């Protein structure tokens, strides 16, 4: 699904990622953990194709295709979804309108018929119900006046509707209380499927109590310092990241 090979990335001339290797198979959930400033968010943005990141070496291969140079909307159409750490507000644009535009843009890309308003609303309501999202949240402007928890749940709703092949959750657990985190985790677990891969980027181990990863990687100083199974997360919880600070020095 996703093969990252020796990826080097700079932002404004400063090297952030210094040789990342990562291989995610279909159906797998990987967690990437690391201290603040380790390059976790950079990695997620580079996969999604955000401007302002310069790839100075290496490649990102997604479903056998090099992503370099592809626009973010093309990557999205090909099935890459990024749940944002800080979901953005779009005043005056109803959640429903936004999501219908998004889904239909992706459908157009694949040469599929667009959904009309009736079909779309029906589908959206079903998904919202599954995720326990109240109807009024669908009518409100995108993320405007949403609480932290509502914003994150809205990201999961978008993910459920756009049905991606590769989902990246960037610090989705930050700022969530335990109930909101359970709802988010449940959403992700429900979407677990043999053809879908998920990358969970997080600082803390606690989200991984609810979403059990197949693999855990520790990212620090722009490199993956260690990889292991789910037990690695527990070890980090106990010992912290201090070890990796020294290892990289």
């Amino acid at each position, binding site marked *: 699904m996703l093969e990252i090979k020796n990826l080097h990335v700079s932002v404004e001339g400063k090297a952030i990622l210094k040789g990342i290797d990562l291989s995610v198979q279909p159906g797998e959930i990987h967690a990437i953990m690391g201290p603040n400033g380790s390059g976790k968010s950079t990695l997620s943005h580079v996969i*999604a*194709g*955000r*401007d*302002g990141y310069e790839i100075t070496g290496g490649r990102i291969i997604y479903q056998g295709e090099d992503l370099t140079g592809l*626009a*973010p*909307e093309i*990557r*999205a*159409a090909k099935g890459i*979804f*990024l749940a*944002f750490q*800080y*979901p*953005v*507000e*779009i*005043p*005056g*644009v*109803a959640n*429903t*309108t*936004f*999501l*219908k*535009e*998004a*889904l*239909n*843009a*992706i459908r157009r*890309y694949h040469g599929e018929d*667009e959904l009309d*308003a009736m079909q*779309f609303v029906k589908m959206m309501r079903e998904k919202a119900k599954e995720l326990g999202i109240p109807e009024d949240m669908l009518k409100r*402007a995108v993320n405007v006046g949403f609480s932290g928890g509502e914003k994150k749940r809205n990201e999961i709703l*978008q993910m459920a509707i*756009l049905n991606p092949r590769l989902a990246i959750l960037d610090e989705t657990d930050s700022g969530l209380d335990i109930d909101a985190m359970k709802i988010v985790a449940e959403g992700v677990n429900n979407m677990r499927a043999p053809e879908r891969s998920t990358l969970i980027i997080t600082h803390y181990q606690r989200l991984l109590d609810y979403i059990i990863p197949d693999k855990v990687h520790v990212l620090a100083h722009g490199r993956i310092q260690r990889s292991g199974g789910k037990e690695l997360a527990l070890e980090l919880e106990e010992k912290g990241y201090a070890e990796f600070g020294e290892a990289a020095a």
Partner: protein
Amino acid sequence: MVASTNTAQQVKELAEEKYKYGFFTDIESETAPKGLNEDIVRFISAKKNEPEWLLKWRLKAFKYWLTMPEPRWSKVIHDPIDYQDAYYYSAPKSAADGPQSLDEIDPQLLETYEKLGIPLKEQERLSGVAVDAVFDSVSVATTFKAKLGEVGVIFCPISEALEVCPDLVKKYLGTVVPYTDNKHATLNSAVFTDGSFVYIPPGVRCPMELSTYFRINAANTGQFERTLIIADKGSYVSYLEGCTAPMRDEHQLHAAVVELITLDDAEIKYSTIQNWYPGDENGRGGIYNFVTKRGHCRGRNSKISWTQVETGAAITWKYPSCILQGDNSVGEFYSIAITNNYQQADTGTKMIHLGKNTTSRIISKGISAGRANQTYRGLVRISPKAEGARNFTQCDSLLIGDRCGAHTVPYIECKNKSAIVEHEATTSKISEDQLFYLRQRGIPPEEAVTLVVNGFCREVLQQLPMEFAVEAQKLVGISLEGSVG
């Protein structure tokens, strides 16, 4: 809601068309000699078979105009206008004698309006919307006249109104915008050629939307239409105007005047979708849109509401205003102005509170892209007798890119202590974060910008009659074409 969800698709469909109204119709026309002098004013008046009083009024205006300097207080910049280098009367020959029915209209004219999406033929008309079509200097067709006549509504070209109801025209013309008002309005008073006249009798709620489509076709021709709408006691009318012009390298002048009058308990809702040719991406050509629009709430409890979507024209200079004379009268101004490339707009409103407990509401949304410059200029004046007057103003600007400008110039004159005047203003940019967020969800950049802008304008778009809201949203997308990346 349904309208906005379709926007992106429609924008995409129209994306290659750029300014799709830029065609020219090769039609035989009758044109007055080039230039402006007293003879031209007499020529126009004679062409229209006008009564003596109107000719005298025109001539007074013309003499006064000669003494007036160009207005220089706005922020717009342009070369001096050569008033002698233009034609002041141009009429399609076949329409010059006034068609008696649609069958007599030149098929080429009908075709032109069809290209503009305005079917004039009986069987194809938009149901529920009556249309008056003004081509260069004359009105070529008015639909649904008979049906409106049944309830006593008069909707016709102003030249025709002079024959049908001369007393009404004489009583109200120039009473809201006097011929001495400003340079452009005075020019209009001297040389206005046509425009729409509407009279709604007491107690009548006009059964359909009324609309006028203005089209400048001939080269080097100015368009000077004059619209007069009178809503008698307890009546209601919703009126919409749309405007387009061919693409030409030279600038063309459009100096219109609109006068609205509401008597006791009457309401006029006036919407404009202005899409004159804006000039090319280097600022060559385009219409100078210098328009004076003013409403007079003469009666108690009357209301005038202006909604405008200004996307076209090289320069827009207009301030649809309300004089709130009747007690408890209400004035509203909802505006979207979009400027791209080298377009300039200096627009806003004036709310003059004279009566007791008068209220006004101003919602202005300005969007600038490319190298465009835009100014909101608004006056709220509370006179000493306007006990309990109330105003709310919200003025938001959105910038796209870093070479455009937005300016807000609010004037507030409050001479009554009981008045409450509120002013809110914001300026924002479409952020990189917003664009990336939308694109990450699969929405291409131009559609993403359109979505954000439509969201920004929502409050105003909601004010438009449903049939036109969709058209306005499409325009938003087209006007901003090329503003990303």
